[in-house]
Structure formats: structure tokens, C-alpha cells
């Protein structure tokens, strides 16, 4: 195992969405809505703006990667006082050979 640990570990692409919680002011979203209205998109009645992160993570299983991603999102990517995060997608990414060898 030890010597080819890198080769057996998989790499994943994890997308995380962070949005302001309900009831938290989002002046950025309000400003964007105003901009859309002046562009003729009055049919947009509300905009909330958040952040989108794409992480490249190493891990054995999808479950393991998801739980690590949730942990780090709760610790750093989102401030749980005012924001909520969701793991949007987890897909396996195949390491290019040059990286697998290291």
C-alpha cells in the first residue's frame, strides 16, 4: 500500500455554493436587481447573491470527500451565522499521469 498510496487515492472536483441565509440582508443582490430592472428586466422580482467555490480534493470515497467538504465549508467557506452552504456536485476527476507519479 504505502508506496503507491498516491496512485490509489482518487481526485474529486467538489462544487460548493454559499448563500446568505433567509432574513439576512443582501444589498449586493438588491443592487443587481436594480441594475436588471434598468436593463429592462423588470420581471426579475428578487436577486440574492452568494459565492461559488470549486475544490479539487483527494480522497478514497465520495462519502469521505463530501464529509471533508462539509467540514471545511462550515469552518471557513461559509459563516454559519449568516450563510448556508450546499455541496452542489462531486465528480471524480482522473489524475494526469504526471501528477499521479509526483
Amino acid at each position: 500500500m504505502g508506496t503507491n498510496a498516491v496512485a490509489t487515492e482518487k481526485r474529486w472536483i467538489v462544487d460548493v455554493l454559499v448563500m446568505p441565509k433567509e432574513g439576512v440582508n443582501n444589498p449586493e443582490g438588491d443592487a443587481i436587481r436594480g441594475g436588471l430592472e434598468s436593463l429592462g428586466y423588470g420581471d426579475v422580482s428578487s436577486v440574492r447573491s452568494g459565492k461559488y467555490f470549486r475544490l479539487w480534493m483527494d480522497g478514497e470515497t465520495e462519502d469521505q470527500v463530501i464529509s471533508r467538504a462539509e467540514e471545511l465549508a462550515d469552518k471557513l467557506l461559509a459563516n454559519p451565522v449568516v450563510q448556508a452552504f450546499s455541496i452542489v456536485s462531486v465528480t471524480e476527476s482522473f489524475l494526469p499521469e504526471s501528477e499521479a507519479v509526483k
Partner: protein
Amino acid sequence: VTPTVGVISFPGSNGDDDAVQAFSRDLGVSTRLVDYRETDLSPYQALVLPGGFSYGDHLRPGAIARFAPAMKSVRDFAERGGPVLGICNGFQVLTEAHLLPGALLRNASLRFHCQRICVRVEHTNTPWTRCLELNSVLSLPIAHGDGAYFADDETLDRLEAAGQVVFRYCEIDGSTTTRSNPNGSSRFIAGICSEGRNVVGLMPHPERATDPLLGRADGRLILESVFHSMSLGV
């Protein structure tokens, strides 16, 4: 023993030297700049987290500074009851570190506000407000883009009931009007303290108002308070 103040300097802090100058030159107190990688805070009897843009405000103001090596020692210091003052970005760092409740959001106007404002002193029983007069109005400078204090209603009610709202934005006569709230803070909150009362955070800059040459010296009493608290052994 003469007390020594430690001012934690993060990458991107810009109010750190202002704080050192205010304490050392204007108040004549021994003060040292403390590198964010320092973990031994035993030489200090009071700590200041200064204003600025630590780590470029990336992700959220204070979000990355919270994990700086010095912050674990700041937490220990605070948990032992040591007086900690977070000014502007320092306040943001303290909320991100959960040493103070709530969060600071983008100003409602979406504009950076650099101006003089007034705050009303709501409580004086903290080590950083002991020299202030209850209900008095202070004129202090602000300079921030993310200063809208937010907490859910339950937390706000709890803070009010426990007397943890220390400063509120107001007019010069002490009345609270929408106009006097520069950033859209919940319930006009400009500064709060921890449950243990020893950690205080505020958006205005008392360290930039310690000499009449700077316009007014209303901030001086905030900085001086901590030494009165120490001599009282509080």
C-alpha cells in the same frame, strides 16, 4: 508592574500603527506590535485587534485572520478574562472567531463610509468603557465597507437583555434615527461586548480620536478605560 498592550498585526492590518501610537504616544502606555504568528501573549495585559483589511478581506473580512497562529492565544487570553478590544476589522475578526456573537455584513449603501459619526454609550461595565459616562455621545471616525452589524432577532434580544450592546449609532443629541445609522446595522449597533464583558468590538476607530489635533479626542476614554479596570483589578 506597568501594563503592556499588545496590538496584533495581521497581514493587511493598517490601523495597527495607529493603535500603537495612540497607546504609546498619546496615553504614554507601554505598547508593542505583535506579529500574527506569535503565540506567546504572556507579556501583555490587554490586547487590541486593529483595523484594516487582514488577508485582503478575501472570502469575508476577518474570515482568514481568524485562523492566524496568534488567534488561538487570543482566544485563551479572552477565555481567562483578559481584556480584548477589536476595532473595525478587529471586530470582524472577533465575530468570525465566535468570540463575539453576530456578523458584520456589507454596508446597506454598498459604499465605503469614511466619516465622523456619533455613538451613544449604552453600558459602561466593560474594561473598555469604564471611564465613559452612561448615555453620553461620542464623536468617532469610521472607515469601513462591511460594518452592518447583523444577528438574528433571538440573539439581538439576548444581547439587549444582557446589556451587551455597548455602543449605538446616534445623532449628536443621542437620538437614534435612520440617518444616524451609517451602514444599516441591526438596532443601530456600533459595538458589543462578550457575555463575560471582557471582549469588546466596535466599528468606529477610538484610536484615531485620541488627540485634539485629530479633531476630537473622544476615543481616548475608551483606551484609557482598560487601565482603570486593571488598577481596580477588574
